[in-house]
């Protein structure tokens, strides 16, 4: 499997996952290109979170292929190895290290040697500081640098988590409902930030907020009962009879 089978950055083919007879994913196939942003929509239980679990190594599929950069078999790697490959994930509820300050949160995410021995002996460098400065600037948390992450507002935590993702310098970002619980202004800012990121990195966004998805203005995939129901521009997908029936409502 040394020669790439596919030019796509992320390639899922015929992936199925079942829990005690319940099929969370049913022969799902999906391909995402380098520096492409993709929005995933679908009703609850459509398999969006399970799909992310498969991509990040949290759940092993019962069958199917999951390839990253055409060569890496995601079904055989664990979470840490997949993160090292360059896949970052933001959870649905913002998950940051609440007892650490904002700076340390970013520091822990920086792309560096992650072995226990290296971290035990590591010393802060000027380069690290510059990286942290730049990232904090980008997610607008410079002023909160020394505050505990647990004290941040919900929206700030979402942005901190995105900042941590960026610190990993991933090739692919999986972002689960970034706009949930945000004000309209924050939602619009988040859309801007994601579009900016997608210029250099691939992004998969799972979102329910249709306004937000429209703001992103990217290719949309609609999942239903564990497989792809429709794919295309938001307008094309919204016009699809089945999508209207199962998800958008009449």
């Amino acid at each position, binding site marked *: 499997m040394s020669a790439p089978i596919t030019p796509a950055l992320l390639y899922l083919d015929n992936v199925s996952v079942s829990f005690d007879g319940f099929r969370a994913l049913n022969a799902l196939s999906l391909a995402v290109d380098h520096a492409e942003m993709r929005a995933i929509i679908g009703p609850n239980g459509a398999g969006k979170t399970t799909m992310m679990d498969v991509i990040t190594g949290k759940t092993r599929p019962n069958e199917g292929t999951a390839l990253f950069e055409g060569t890496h078999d995601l079904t055989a790697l664990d979470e840490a190895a997949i993160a090292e490959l360059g896949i970052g994930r933001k959870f649905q509820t913002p998950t940051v*290290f609440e*007892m650490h300050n904002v700076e340390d949160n970013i520091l822990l995410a920086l792309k560096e040697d992650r072995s226990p021995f290296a971290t035990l002996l590591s010393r802060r460098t000027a380069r690290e500081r510059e990286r942290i400065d730049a990232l904090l600037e980008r997610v607008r948390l410079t002023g909160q640098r020394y505050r505990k992450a647990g004290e941040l507002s919900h929206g700030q935590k979402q942005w901190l988590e995105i900042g941590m993702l960026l610190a990993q310098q991933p090739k692919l970002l999986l972002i689960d409902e970034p706009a949930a619980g945000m004000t309209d202004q924050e939602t619009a800012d988040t859309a801007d930030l994601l579009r900016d990121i997608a210029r250099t990195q691939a992004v998969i966004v799972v979102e329910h907020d249709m306004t937000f998805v429209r703001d992103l203005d990217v290719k949309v995939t609609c999942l239903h009962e564990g497989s792809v129901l429709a794919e295309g521009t938001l307008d094309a997908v919204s016009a699809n009879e089945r999508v209207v029936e199962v998800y958008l409502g009449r």
Partner: protein
Amino acid sequence: MTKRTVLDRQSIVVLCLLAAAAILVPVLNVAVDPGSPFHLSDHLVPLLGKYISFALLALSVDLIWGFCGILSLGHGAFFALGGYAMGMYLMRQIGPRGVYADPILPDFMVFLNWKELPWFWQGFDWFPFAMLMVLLVPGILAFVFGWFAFRSRVTGVYLSIITQAMTFALMLAFFRNDMGFGGNNGLTDFKDILGFPIQSSSTRIVLFVLSVAALAGGYLLCRWVVTSKFGKVLVAVRDAESRTRFLGYRVEHYKLAVFTLSAMLAGVAGALYVPQVGIINPSEFAPANSIEIVIWVAVGGRGTLAGPIIGALLVNAGKTWFTGMLPEFWLFALGGLFVFVTLLMPRGILGAAKDFWEWARQRMRSPAAPEPVSQAAE
């Protein structure tokens, strides 16, 4: 702010207090006239030394529980293994002075009709080897156990329960005579350590000072670990394990490293404990002992390094007092302490003190304001 500070104000206070203890206890014991009220009687020196070794043990539990969220209910096992390694050295030092006067075999082996020293007793007559074993035996057990447990992601109460099963199994094993560790009676009747008589008051003072030094060393080591980036990862694992994993950290390696380090610290504590109390037996493996260590940590304040030291000293002093004055009530008091601390003082004495300090400072700053100033997010 970005510079790593191993020695903060709290650490300096802790180290100064330990240094004061290392100086005062010998002075009060040796230099002060026995008639004076300030004289420290001879039997108190090893008692205090025992408390100090318990404090080191509590520190080792805090390192994994307070900073990495691993609640081990089997740390007494590592403590006891370190103690047994020391006890084996002390047994070999008895030589022909035992009841049966066998130049090589300890009394209990003669009693069991054993003809030669088992292989695992070889080398323990050499002090450096025994000290190496004090570190290695608990360390290797912790490594093997942790390697299995953390790799298969056994966490939370499940991990606590299997650590308890581990120490329980070891207790049953060490109670057996044919294990070769003295069965029920364990190892005792020690004569001397490195040639110094173990009962003499000067040896005991040296042992006390060494215990304090080991505690200070353990404290500095833990402090160095938790202030490093490694320590930040530990806290990250404690607060959001899967987040840490998705960032690319191999959580199991971190847990394994800190668990093994902690077990070795517990082993050192055991090795200091044994010469000062003069006996090591299988009851040290009892699951109840291991849970008691956890309460020392909880009382003092987990997640702080000074907390477990304070907790171990206070609870054990309380135990000595109660078992002397009101033996009936000790278990009531200990049980009540478990409930009280978990319900009302989850951050322990240090946490409560910190909260009180914050509260007092707020009051000082705005004595006129009846309501606390709301802390608006900027």
